[in-house]
């Protein structure tokens, strides 16, 4: 596994100079992600416009409606700059709608649905059906210690196919055709079909923070944006 999070005191990531993690704050469960990251002791910046992205070392794409987020990303001029940052190696974590936005292929989307293509997955929207089928279940996370993760799936997507470079962290059995991945990782891109932010399980956010710390450690001195104004909260 590429980057095992440092497991120190429970719930805390140990980093020397805390990176700044951005949370896309156009729509969705933004405050839950912000709260999780603040609890990890890193800087947190809400990202609504391209200028907000300049000072962040990594980005969370939260849960929400993927169709709405796409429209707002384009309207705000964020689509291209986020794509460029991801291509340049910025670590990202996407939960639910965030997973849809990061996948290479989106099934059962709108005809004009686009995605960043940051992780080699085909993802099916609303794979479990409507809200009455939303559910909670404990999942085992491959390669990440700390016991099962209590996963909350809300009108959730599921992964139909994964590319060869993708590591599957967790799967769920579907009644029709067996196990489907619901948490995956490729390079420094991590995605989940469920919402760790709704239950306060920090492990995947710790992974993102560790990714961000690893990237910043290799990029010292930072090219820009490392001075005043990086820390927004």
């Amino acid at each position, binding site marked *: 596994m590429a980057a095992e999070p440092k497991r120190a005191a429970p719930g805390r990531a140990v980093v020397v100079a805390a990176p700044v993690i951005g949370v896309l704050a156009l*729509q969705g469960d933004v405050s839950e992600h912000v709260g999780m990251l603040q609890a990890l002791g890193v800087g947190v910046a809400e990202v609504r416009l391209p200028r907000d992205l300049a000072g962040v070392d990594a980005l969370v794409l939260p849960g*929400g*409606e993927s169709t709405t987020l796409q429209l707002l990303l384009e309207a705000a001029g964020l689509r291209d700059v986020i794509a460029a940052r991801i291509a340049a190696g910025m670590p990202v974590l996407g939960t639910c709608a965030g997973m849809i936005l990061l996948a290479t292929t989106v099934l059962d989307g709108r005809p004009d649905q686009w995605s960043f293509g940051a992780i080699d997955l085909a993802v099916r929207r609303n794979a479990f059906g409507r809200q009455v089928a939303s559910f909670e279940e404990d999942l085992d996370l491959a390669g990440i210690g700390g016991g099962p993760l209590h996963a909350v799936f809300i009108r959730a997507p599921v992964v139909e196919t994964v590319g060869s470079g993708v590591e599957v962290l967790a799967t769920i059995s579907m009644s029709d055709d067996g196990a489907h991945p619901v948490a995956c990782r490729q390079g420094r891109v991590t995605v989940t079909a469920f919402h760790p932010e709704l239950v306060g399980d920090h492990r995947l956010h710790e992974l993102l923070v560790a990714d961000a710390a690893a990237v910043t450690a290799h990029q010292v001195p930072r090219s820009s944006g490392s001075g005043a104004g990086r820390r927004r909260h």
Partner: protein
Amino acid sequence: MVSKHEMTAKDSAGRVTGTDRVKRGLAEMLRGGVIMDVVTPEHAKIAEDAGAVAVMALERVPADIRRDGGVARMSDPALIEAIKAAVTIPVMAKARIGHFAEAQILQALQVDYIDESEVLTPADEAYHIDKWGFEVPFVCGATNLGEALRRISEGAAMIRSKGEAGSGNIVEAVRHLRSVLGDIRAIATCDATERYGWAKQLQAPVGLVQEIAETGRLPVPLFCAGGIATPADAALVMQLGAEAVFVGSGIFKSEDPAVRARAIVEATAHFRDPEILVKVSRGLGTPMKGAEISTLETRLAERGW
């Protein structure tokens, strides 16, 4: 947390559905978004194209219900099914206050949220629906914190201001939001003994008052509805503390619904950014006409208790 009587179930794979957490969870995912009233599948497509996070499927928007008079009821299932088929985003529908049979039908139709709504003619003068008895989540209107907490104690997973639906006038929604949020701020700073006084004054469960005192927020998401007609209206209520907005008549009773819908979506996302509010407010055509509250024959916000 609330003392719960939730009606959870297991799906065919043995997973737990219908929990309080998944009900409130969908409301959390809608935050920062716009839920739009639609009366046809074509309207629903326009709403989705404009960036709505969900649509409310109904036969008439509140302004038309007000104009037509008569008894307003749950929509025809055929209409709801057609709207469900037209979009990929969540679809909500309204049941009359206390009309649990309408709610059972809406649950069987697998709508994503039920709005137990004062916009429809109430079916029960004493009781709202026992919402713990359903797997589908409910949103209810409230004019003040006591009403909001009574609805939460009955199982509502989202609260919205009632405002004055179909009026195109934001003043009532502002009144309701200020009342709910002002009382929450007061409870968050009161001492432990005073919490019992608040519960008595609000006619609400003391457990919920204590939860607010500890967290400083309503136990479920608080959205705004009733009178939003412009991007500025959306920005106003979001800055006051609403977490998302419902727009009823304000879009499809305006001159150019597609453009206005999109503008309200962007204003809701960027509600603190005056530069973006200028940009999206420009050249939207005529908004719905709206009405002074004092001229309205029926005050919908007075329905429910």
